[in-house]
């Protein structure tokens, strides 16, 4: 396993999850049949993913209530990605119940099974199988109970829509609700029932509308900032002007004069609390503080040099053959360097947490992708045992990897303890841009070579801080070596390569890698005299990848020609943790302004078995739109530890007018277990657009984002170099 597959966190805390005793559990839930199922499968899958063991008494639960409704408990959270619907579909399918009687209970540490967190497009892939198994087992238990009730053998019974009936005499029936009434029964089956074959599915695999829409269009949906606890105070926290800055003096006298304001000072934490958020804001503005800032060493202009100089020893991510031999086999060789700036998550909902402490127990409502991790963090800061901390995760308003860390939760917990009141911390947009764990700036160097039959025979890949995901070659390349000199992780400024926190950003590592890889592939395609689709197919032996490329091409409808064709067509493909996809784009560039208009994007994706086709399409569409941001505008401007972008006025994210026509193709592959789909399609966006820009202009952009200024600069350079024949191309021969 590669180092950057991990979300770095303290597993010591995770090994003591909340385990409620049965009585306490029943008290929380009321009556009903509880089917407890072994998480053996999940354990095994996660074990392979995480290389660590979960506690053995780790169980996930579903509940069939007396009212016939079925609750599904998962430690995963809903942040827009749609598992609130697809999990319910999986459960309803296996349990033979209608979808509309499922209630999802998500990310509540007191009710839900332990979970590492919601990230890495892992929810359906890893939680799905044990959930299905649990539902199948619950159904089998209910059939056993019905057999006793109807005084017949289980084999003579069938279940549909929550009703169990005699196959020969459907009038003899009993509902799940009738069986559940007044009883609390726990059974384990000795023999695990099989889950249904996909061909029998009537709920899973069917396009299904989001189950949370009604709440979200009426304003009823609660996010963490919407939690109101009696006596709750809103906290605003004094922040340094730059990462690494130290407080040297402070004067809170003016702020103290505001009515009902409470000022807290505890070492590094200075906060003002008030029952109204805006009054706390006003008070914070009255605090006079001075800071000493560290010397500025890096900014946007020298960050790439800095990263290369900060490289640690390389880890080999993938290797085959012998580079020397690859070089000698090469007729043409290519060398290029690709750069990617820091990018913000910019979630619509700011990091927010509410903490209420009563005696030796704490309740936390937090916008987090990792509630169980937050539980451990709060327990540590309050010095409570983990089981005395309950983290409840309301709806989360975007995450993208930016809500794996729980800084705001820890802040709220400390302030709740210090003030003796329930406290809400909701970051301002400026704090959001300051404490974001940005997608790291990164540098990729590639040397590659083609033989006389236009096969890629050499691939030497040096990765500085992007993270290694999606960097293993999926093209058939006999001699390759992929090295990583530092992953995407790393927090804070002290001793870190980065002047501020960086972390996982939707498709961590992959966005940068696919941009570099697929740009390099296009460079070679041109040198081979082939069109970029033909060249890819020529160098692929992976039939699955060829299939998604052909599916995308069919939908795209235009044929590619050797670039630059002037048409502005782009192509990129990738394998993101088992999900295969190919993206094609059609763009127009205004040469005078350097502005790019993306007219159309087609994405074909093979995600294995699809649970909710509508949900997968929504994720692909969202990925494409969000991806346009890092293609064209998104770049955090900074000077040392100072973040210069503080809001959406200077940090531009995609808006209505940017929209291309988007078409999605779901490549049918139900024999393959469900793969992830929240991230894959965003990772191809840098590559497909850079290739389309080249096809339009004959100018290659090696830096993301491809701002109008950079495009104009590249055009001017190209015009200059075509006058000066000594420099024909930014790509030099080895």
């Amino acid at each position, binding site marked *: 396993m590669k180092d950057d597959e991990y979300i770095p966190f303290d597993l010591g805390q995770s090994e003591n999850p909340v385990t409620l005793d049965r009585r306490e559990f029943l008290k929380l839930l009321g009556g009903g049949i509880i089917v407890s199922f072994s998480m053996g499968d999940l354990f095994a899958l996660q074990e392979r993913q995480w290389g660590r063991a979960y506690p053995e008494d780790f169980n996930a639960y579903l509940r069939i209530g007396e009212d016939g409704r079925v609750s599904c408990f998962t430690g995963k959270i809903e*942040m*827009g*990605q*749609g598992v609130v619907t697809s999990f319910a579909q999986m459960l309803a399918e296996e349990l033979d119940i209608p979808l509309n009687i499922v209630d999802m209970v998500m990310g509540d540490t007191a009710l839900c099974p332990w979970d590492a967190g919601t990230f890495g497009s892992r929810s359906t892939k890893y939680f799905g199988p044990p959930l299905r198994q649990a539902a199948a087992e619950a159904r089998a238990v209910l059939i056993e109970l019905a057999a006793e009730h109807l005084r017949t053998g289980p084999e003579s019974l069938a279940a549909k829509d929550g009703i169990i009936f005699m196959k020969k005499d459907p009038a003899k029936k009993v509902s799940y609700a009738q069986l559940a009434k007044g009883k609390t029964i726990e059974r384990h089956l000795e023999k695990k029932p099989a889950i249904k074959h996909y061909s029998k599915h009537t709920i899973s695999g069917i396009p299904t*509308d*989001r189950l*949370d*829409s*009604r*709440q*979200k*269009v*009426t*304003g*009823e*949906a*609660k*996010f963490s*900032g*919407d939690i*109101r606890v009696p006596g709750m105070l*809103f906290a605003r926290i004094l922040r340094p002007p730059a990462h690494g800055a130290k407080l040297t003096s402070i004067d809170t006298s003016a702020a103290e004069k505001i009515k009902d304001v409470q000022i807290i000072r505890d070492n590094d934490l200075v906060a003002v609390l008030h*029952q*109204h*958020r*805006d*009054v706390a804001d006003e008070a914070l503005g009255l605090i006079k503080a001075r800071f000493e800032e560290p010397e500025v060493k890096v900014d946007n202009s020298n960050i790439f040099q800095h990263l290369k100089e900060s490289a640690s020893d390389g880890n080999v991510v993938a290797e085959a053959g012998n580079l020397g031999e690859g070089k000698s086999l090469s007729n043409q060789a290519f060398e290029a360097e690709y750069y990617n700036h820091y990018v913000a998550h*910019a*979630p*619509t*909902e*700011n990091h927010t947490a509410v903490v209420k402490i009563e005696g030796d127990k704490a309740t936390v409502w937090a916008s987090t992708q990792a509630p169980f991790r937050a539980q451990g963090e709060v327990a540590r800061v309050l010095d409570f045992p983990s089981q005395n901390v309950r983290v409840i995760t309301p*709806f*989360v*308003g*975007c995450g*993208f990897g930016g809500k794996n860390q729980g800084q705001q939760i820890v802040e709220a917990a400390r302030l709740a303890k210090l003030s003796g009141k329930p406290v809400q911390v*909701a970051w*301002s*947009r400026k704090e959001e841009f300051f404490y974001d764990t940005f997608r790291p700036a990164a540098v990729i160097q590639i040397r590659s070579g083609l033989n006389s039959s236009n096969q890629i025979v050499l691939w030497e890949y040096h990765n500085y801080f992007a993270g290694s995901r999606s960097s293993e070659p999926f093209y058939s390349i006999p001699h390759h070596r992929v090295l990583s000199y530092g992953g995407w992780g790393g927090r804070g400024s002290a001793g870190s390569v980065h002047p501020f926190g960086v972390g996982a950003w939707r498709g961590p590592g992959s966005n940068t890698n696919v941009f570099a890889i697929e740009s390099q592939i296009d460079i070679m395609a041109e040198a081979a005299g082939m069109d970029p689709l033909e060249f890819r197919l020529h160098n692929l032996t992976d039939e699955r990848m060829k299939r998604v490329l052909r599916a995308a091409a069919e939908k795209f409808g235009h044929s590619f020609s050797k670039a630059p064709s002037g048409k502005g067509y782009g192509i990129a493909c990738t394998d993101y943790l088992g999900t295969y996809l190919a993206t094609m784009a059609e763009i127009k560039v205004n040469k005078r302004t350097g502005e790019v208009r993306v007219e159309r994007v087609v994405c074909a994706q093979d995600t294995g078995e699809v649970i909710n086709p*509508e949900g997968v399409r*929504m994720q692909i*569409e*969202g*990925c*494409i*739109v*969000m991806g346009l941001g890092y293609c064209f505008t998104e770049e955090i401007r900074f000077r040392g530890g100072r973040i210069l972008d503080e*809001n*959406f*006025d200077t940090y531009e*994210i*995609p*808006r*209505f*007018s940017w*929209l291309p026509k*988007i078409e999605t193709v779901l490549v049918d592959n139900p024999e393959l277990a469900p793969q992830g789909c929240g991230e894959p399609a965003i990772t191809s966006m840098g590559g497909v657009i850079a290739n389309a820009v080249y096809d339009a202009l004959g100018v290659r952009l090696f830096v993301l984002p491809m701002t109008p200024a950079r495009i104009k600069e590249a055009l001017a350079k190209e015009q200059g170099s075509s006058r000066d024949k000594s420099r024909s191309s930014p790509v030099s021969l080895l």
Partner: protein
Amino acid sequence: MEKTTSFKLNGKNVRLTTSPDRMLLWVLRSDLALTGTKYSCGEGFCGACTVLVNNEAVLSCQYPVQNVNGKEVLTIEGLQKNGELHPLQTAFIQHNALQCGFCTPGMILKAYSLLLKNPRPSSREIVEDMEGYLCRCGSYNRIIQAIQNAAQTMKGRIS
């Protein structure tokens, strides 16, 4: 100095005494506990805090509470009539025109104000009108479809 402000909120009369310079967003969210109106950028760059004041979409994070005196305010909580969803709400559901849902109340209310002025907007007119409204999940295409679909259903009868 505190002042009394009277206005109609989702059809009900409201009277509250507070500092007149406070932004409507915070009065709604913290004093009145109407949390459907969202705080996101806080500076008028994203649209998440949109409410209607006399049927005009305003950014409540930039709108002092004294300005609503004597006016009618509609928030997302007030859009349903007798428990029935407004056609815009229904269309957002039908088109899955949302993911995380945090920008949704602002999107719907902005669309509502657009349809009041222009009952049959073209997609270009929708884009122009909604350009300042941000959806990080990228549901824009579906939002446009939902607004057009709602416009068709309503046949010019917005409220």
